[in-house]
């Protein structure tokens, strides 16, 4: 597979991609988002080659989640557009999976873990069809993959934070997409759940899937991601981790003065 190399830094002109857009899992062009009159993202050009694990890294309020939401049409962008496998989202929705931060969920909802995971199949069912045996079997398989098949009949609110994250990962896996968006999957979870999610990540990479992860723990970026985008309202750097995840770029993204050694040790 040809991996498009589009390392660039802020302000510098964007290199022309060497291969056609179809080699990209997703891309945005000039994407800007403003909440009220305050710009959160400024003209973001962002591209993810197929088959990589791309980490979106940046300080709080850098617009990491907003970037994903704007790409998926959950937030209306001010300017710019996004493409998935060279096409608009409406045409490729079934190839795209989204694992949101779990804050938008109603934890007291009367539903079981298996039910929640089965919801991942609803998108492919169309308007009226109901999930059947096949969908439930897929849900069970996804629960096994995330290591929590024994929780299948629990009410969703009874789970711990890490278990909940694994349920939402399973719900995304059930969709069997080619491109995964994960919003802070490692946020506030136990070590065992973290391991389970990491092992799923490895499997996905082996299967040649593309994963985009919003991540904010600089120390583990290199462990999970082979591509990194440093974001702070605009793209500071993007590309293979060796080239983009450098001291200089991290400093720029986190707006730290040169010489602060705490940031240096994670960099390439």
């Amino acid at each position: 597979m040809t991996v498009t190399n589009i390392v660039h830094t802020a302000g510098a002109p964007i290199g022309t991609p060497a291969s056609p857009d179809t080699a990209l899992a997703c891309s945005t062009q000039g994407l800007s988002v403003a909440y009220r009159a305050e710009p959160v993202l400024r003209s973001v050009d962002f591209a993810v080659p197929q088959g990589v694990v791309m980490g979106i890294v940046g300080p709080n309020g850098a617009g990491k989640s907003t970037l994903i939401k704007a790409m998926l049409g959950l937030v209306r962008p001010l300017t710019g557009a996004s493409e998935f496998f060279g096409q608009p989202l409406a045409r490729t929705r079934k190839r795209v999976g989204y694992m949101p931060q779990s804050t938008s969920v109603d934890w007291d909802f009367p539903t079981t873990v298996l039910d929640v995971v089965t919801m991942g199949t609803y998108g492919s069912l169309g308007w009226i069809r109901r999930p059947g045996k096949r969908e439930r079997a897929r849900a069970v398989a996804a629960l096994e993959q995330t290591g929590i098949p024994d929780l299948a009949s629990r009410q969703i609110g009874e789970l711990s934070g890490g278990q909940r994250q694994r349920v939402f990962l399973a719900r995304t896996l059930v969709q069997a997409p080619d491109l995964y968006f994960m919003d802070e999957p490692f946020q506030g979870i136990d070590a065992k759940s973290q391991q389970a999610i990491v092992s799923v990540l490895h499997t996905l990479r082996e299967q040649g899937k593309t994963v985009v992860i919003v991540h904010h723990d600089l120390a583990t970026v290199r462990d999970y991601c082979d591509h990194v985008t440093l974001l702070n309202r605009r793209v500071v750097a993007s590309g293979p981790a060796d080239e983009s995840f450098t001291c200089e770029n991290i400093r720029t993204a986190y707006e730290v003065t040169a010489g602060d050694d705490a940031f240096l040790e994670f960099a390439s």
Partner: protein
Amino acid sequence: MSLIEFLGNHTYRMVFFGTMTIGLVAGALGSFAYLRKQSLISDVISHAALPGTLLAFLTAVVVLGADGRNMIALIIGAVIVGTLAVLFANGVTRVSKIRIDTAMAVSLTVFFGGGMLLMRIIANGAFPGKGGIQDYLFGNASVITIADLTTSITVGALALALMLVFWKEFALHTFDPDHSTVLGFRARTIDTLMFATIVIATVIGVKAVGLVLMVAFVVTPPAAARQWTRTLPGMVALSGLFGAVGSGVGAYLSIVLGRVPTGPLIVLTLFAIFLVSLLFSPRRSIITRAISRTRARAALKRELLLASAPAEGALR
């Protein structure tokens, strides 16, 4: 009708000042319900006022042998039962997974349903001075007496005084309940006091404008006032002013126009004030916001296009 002529008439004067008092008190105290994000609690309170006043009526007539239409007795009954309804709604959310909207709906219907059953019991008995359900649903501003007016002014002043005495606690609690608890103020005590003032504000209007429309007196003025001011004192004062002016104008219009009922006209006047505020207030309004947003968008777009001009079309 000239204003002097209007104010020279006893009934008109009672309607005018009576509804203005209601509007002032409900508007000012409604601000806290609004900031507490629980404006609709006033709808629960006004519906719970039905069994409250009926119980007071029964107690006054049967136990005390007094006049069943005594305003003070009715207000005390309504305040007690209204507070119970609030405590029920908030208590349900505290002890179970039921959320506040559902808890309020349950409380409203249970208390109102109970009131309807009481109503039937009263209707079947021979009590002097009993009224029909429509008196409670829509109220009647034209029967406000001097005694009623003094009662509402006294009780309303009491509620406003409570608000001023506990101003600091109310402000802190509505803004950041956790912080106020950490500082050592018992959340439940403040809550009960605050809701008690809201109950009083709601209840004093039920006789004149009815239990169905009272919610508008508590919800609308604060929602309008919020668009013009950034401070809590400013909001409470303006909200009270909007309530009083809206009620006065509505009452005046209803008398001048003749056949049109007072309560509904006041509600429409308040709604008009709200719409004007929402559309035209200089800082926060739909129009100013739309204009500033469009401007900011245009400026941002221009800036972004300029910045990326050298790279334009690079990805295509």
